[in-house]
């Protein structure tokens, strides 16, 4: 690229295009309380829906009596499975090819399951009536452990008990869902059998929940006059919701309008389709009135969308000087009562097979067994691209365990096994093609930034002091080098309910040179209105401040698969850039006509086309836009619009190096994060301020997960962490300041080289925190201890290691 002149730099700065920390346009509304979230929507005559939920984790529903509930003033209807059955809506298909009860059909399978739906004039009346619905339950044996489920005679899913095959192939037990494998088993076993060193470990990634600050909700409004159904809701994929609603209800798709208004955080929680949405729609059709349903926090934590719950049994082999030769993993995946995992159809374990991580491992094999238990369904990608967090945690723990086995420094072990920069594009043993990376550079930069050697010396001294009785605090250095896989995905192998995972952008340039662009994605706080305008500003030369971005209304936005799995930038961002280039291509012809030269004789110049060799002869985008509407240009249609549907040729592979330095108090189990350094390489950086914000937020969610957050059940299947009293969300008081850093390795196949960043900090953060805890106790013999590392569990580690004696 030619160096820009001063004039060009000045013009480029005015655009606030890619690479600038443009302030967010969303904030003017949000800081004044002028957001429009689903619970803010109010329609004339609107009714309010609420659920009767099961107190039992497994029980037969013998009868439901709604008589008393119907007497409550304001109550309009109480729906049960019987009412939904004639519409075939008492069950619904899940994203994972299973089906799920919308309302209890003969039995309940997890605590908090939806049993009846009360519709009333306001939320107080609805709550009163919920109390008065009498349900007669007969308790059944409860299974909350997936290993037990596979041995038990108790049949959880009676509806499919005789089916020997499910959506993902054969089932080998009535509580078994699928077995899924990838890689070369024979070669992997052979590598492990013949290895000089083998480390084996069970790595458990506990069940947790995305818990966005806004819960899920919807307002459904059936207009009986026009026959049009409008549904507002907390949908991370509004277009897919429309298609599903049409298929389920039989209402033609053009007669359904789905709108995702402002969304108060999603983190995967708002990808799924929940019974509340279906019930609100049915209730609106039945009553002819708009119906609102908003979860409360307990409903949210108990019933919608858990994440993780993976038991990962690993074996990793290496030469005695540390070169890894093989990796084997068998996952027992607890999917709860229905398989409602949000994964692309062909991948029942998501992209878990990215579990060779950042390392060049010649032979690898994974096998995943999905299992039913009496827990809530879900299995969403909580700030993660489809089981990538589980994969990263698994490999980053296995590396640490191998380092112990080899008696080697874990940083060095990583370094000698990294995929080298010259190996990209790299074919992994589990079938992925990594697009680009430079792991050694990132790693060295990270180690230097934290003075890794100095830290190790300090740690050694600390251990001495501890042994000498001078301190009761240990120092842990948590290392992680993660590789993500995001941007699902190529339509040839990624779909959701049959819908290919492309994305889209449609641009209209107005006559006066400002613009509106609409996308198939939907922001839940990721600043799309700000950053997509930046991409367009750079591509079209129209200032970002003159571009409106709109998403989330299926009547106006082009079809897209939505926002999750860090796919907005890799997929919709690419569509945006390419739509911008189409605009530019037409603009070039218009400019050439206006300048009376041949198309090839003009060149792009920041915000204009100028005559080659005569930059003083030019037409700005503003002038070109006007001409597009007011001049008859031979051979060209009037107007200046473009649309692009982008099917990515490959995923993108962001990576990063995270280091956490943590003090742990051996006697109280309390921890203190002294330093957290996060280096991210997400390819081309669109808005550094927004990227930093994503990293801060993602690392904080990782801290929560690693250090205390879990959805825990007792043996009866009671949720023990169903309120924010028990479910750990860190406050400003517990969270440290993070240091962010970056390298830039653009994606070679993405139009602007961007890879996506939203989920990296969660993927990398969890192992960094967990490894810090483990590392603090490594010298005393700790190999593996399950998350979350709350104070009690850390105290227990110390106690089990005899450090309290």
């Amino acid at each position, binding site marked *: 690229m030619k160096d820009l002149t001063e004039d060009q730099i000045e013009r480029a700065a005015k655009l606030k295009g890619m690479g600038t920390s443009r*302030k*967010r346009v*969303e*904030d*003017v*509304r*949000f*800081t*004044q*309380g*002028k*957001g429009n*979230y689903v*619970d*803010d929507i*109010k329609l004339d005559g609107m009714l309010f829906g609420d659920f009767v939920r099961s107190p039992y984790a497994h029980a037969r529903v013998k009868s439901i009596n709604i008589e008393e509930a119907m007497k409550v003033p304001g109550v309009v209807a109480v729906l049960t499975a019987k009412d939904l059955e004639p519409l075939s809506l008492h069950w619904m298909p899940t994203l994972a090819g299973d089906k799920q009860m919308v309302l209890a059909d003969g039995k309940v399978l997890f605590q908090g399951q939806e049993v009846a739906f009360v519709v009333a004039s*306001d*939320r*107080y009346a609805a709550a009163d009536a919920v109390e008065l619905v009498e349900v007669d339950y007969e308790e059944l044996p409860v299974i909350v452990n997936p290993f037990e489920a596979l041995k038990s005679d108790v049949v959880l899913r009676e509806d499919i008990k005789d089916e020997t095959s499910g959506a993902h192939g054969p089932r080998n037990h009535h509580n078994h869902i699928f077995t899924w494998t990838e890689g070369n088993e024979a070669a992997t076993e052979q590598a492990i059998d013949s290895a000089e060193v083998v480390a084996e470990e069970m790595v458990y990634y506990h069940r947790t929940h995305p*818990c*966005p*600050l*806004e*819960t899920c909700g919807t307002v459904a409004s059936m207009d009986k006059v026009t026959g049009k159904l409008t549904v507002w809701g907390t949908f991370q994929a509004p277009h897919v919701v429309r298609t599903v609603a049409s298929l389920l209800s039989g209402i033609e798709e053009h007669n359904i309008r789905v709108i995702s208004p*402002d*969304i*108060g*955080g999603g*983190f995967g929680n708002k990808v799924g389709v929940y019974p509340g949405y279906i019930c609100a729609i049915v209730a609106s059709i039945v009553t002819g009135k708009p119906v609102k349903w*908003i979860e*409360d*926090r307990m409903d949210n934590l108990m019933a919608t969308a858990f994440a993780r719950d993976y038991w990962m049994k690993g074996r990793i082999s290496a030469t005695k000087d540390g070169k890894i030769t093989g990796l084997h993993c068998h996952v027992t995946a607890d999917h709860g009562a229905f398989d409602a995992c949000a994964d692309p159809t062909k991948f029942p374990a998501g992209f878990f097979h990215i579990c060779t991580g950042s390392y060049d491992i010649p032979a690898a094999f994974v096998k995943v067994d999905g299992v039913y238990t009496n827990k809530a369904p879900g299995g969403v990608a909580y700030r993660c691209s489809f089981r990538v967090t589980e994969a990263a945690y698994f490999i980053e723990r296995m590396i640490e365990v191998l380092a112990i086995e080899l008696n080697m420094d874990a940083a060095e072990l990583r370094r000698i096994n990294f995929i080298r920069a010259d190996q990209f594009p790299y074919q992994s043993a589990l079938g992925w093609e990594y697009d680009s990376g430079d792991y050694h550079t990132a790693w060295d930069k990270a180690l230097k930034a934290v003075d890794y050697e100095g830290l190790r010396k300090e740690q050694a001294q600390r251990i001495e002091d501890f042994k000498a009785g001078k301190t009761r605090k240990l120092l842990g250095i948590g290392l992680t080098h993660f590789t993500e896989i995001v941007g699902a995905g190529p339509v040839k192998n990624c779909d959701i309910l049959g819908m290919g995972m492309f994305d889209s952008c449609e641009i209209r340039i107005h006559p006066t040179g400002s613009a509106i662009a609409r996308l198939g994605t939907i922001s*839940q*706080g*990721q*600043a799309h209105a700000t950053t997509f305008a930046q991409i367009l500003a750079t591509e079209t030369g129209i200032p970002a401040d003159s571009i409106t971005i709109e998403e989330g209304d299926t009547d106006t936005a082009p079809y897209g698969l939505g926002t999750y799995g860090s796919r907005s930038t890799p997929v919709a961002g690419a569509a945006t850039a390419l739509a911008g280039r189409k605009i530019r291509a037409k603009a070039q012809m218009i400019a050439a006509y206006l300048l009376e030269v041949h198309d090839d004789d003009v060149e792009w110049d920041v915000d204009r086309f100028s005559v080659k060799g005569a930059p003083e002869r030019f037409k700005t985008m503003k002038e070109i836009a006007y001409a597009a509407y007011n001049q008859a240009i031979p051979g060209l249609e009037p107007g200046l619009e473009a649309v692009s549907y982008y099917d990515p040729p490959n995923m993108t592979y962001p990576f990063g190096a995270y280091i956490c330095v943590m003090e742990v108090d051996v006697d109280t189990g309390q921890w203190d994060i002294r330093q957290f350094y996060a280096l991210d390489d997400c390819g081309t950086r669109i808005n550094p*301020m*927004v990227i*930093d*914000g994503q990293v*801060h*937020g*993602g*690392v*904080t*969610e990782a801290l929560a997960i690693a250090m205390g957050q879990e959805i825990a059940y007792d043996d009866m299947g009671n949720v023990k962490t169903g*309120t*924010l*009293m028990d479910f750990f*969300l860190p*406050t*400003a*008081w517990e*969270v440290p*300041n*993070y240091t962010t850093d970056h390298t830039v390795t653009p994606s070679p196949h993405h139009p602007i080289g961007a890879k996506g960043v939203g989920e990296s900090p969660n993927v990398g953060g969890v192992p960094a925190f967990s490894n810090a805890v483990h590392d603090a106790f490594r010298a005393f013999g700790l190999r593996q201890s399950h998350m979350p590392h709350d104070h009690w569990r850390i105290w227990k580690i110390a106690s089990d290691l005899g450090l309290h004696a």
Partner: protein
Amino acid sequence: MSKMHIKLTVNGQEHEMLAEPRELLIHTLRERLNITGPHIGCETSHCGACTVDLNGKSVKACTVFAAQANGAEIKTIEGFAGPDGLHVLQDKFREHHGLQCGFCTPGMITRAYRLLQENPNPTEEEVRFGMAGNLCRCTGYQNIVKSIMAAAAEMNTAKEAAE
């Protein structure tokens, strides 16, 4: 249930209504008065999304009955921006990227306002402690703390200039 006569002054405007004694202030604000800036994130006093300023104190409107607030002066996020534009806290949250999805923001700013009334010159630690009743799932707090510190500095400079 017999209804009670309740009078509230919200952002300088008086409202009178009849409400059941069990009606929560957050519902009164959001559903009756259409003041939807304060949000509901938990209804159990944990998240702070519903924070309003009531008679000069930060309260969580999800755990106050409207009847308890009878006669009170209430300030919500809607009462911050003036004819000259954004309140300095709103402006600093924007400048320092102190928000993402925006769901916690009304409560955050309303709480931060009271914190700075009580302690105009807080240390970072005091800000973190003083804001611990307000949860944010998006930002990791780093930029929220920065925004509040910057607002404090600017408010103090403005005060000095005025004196």
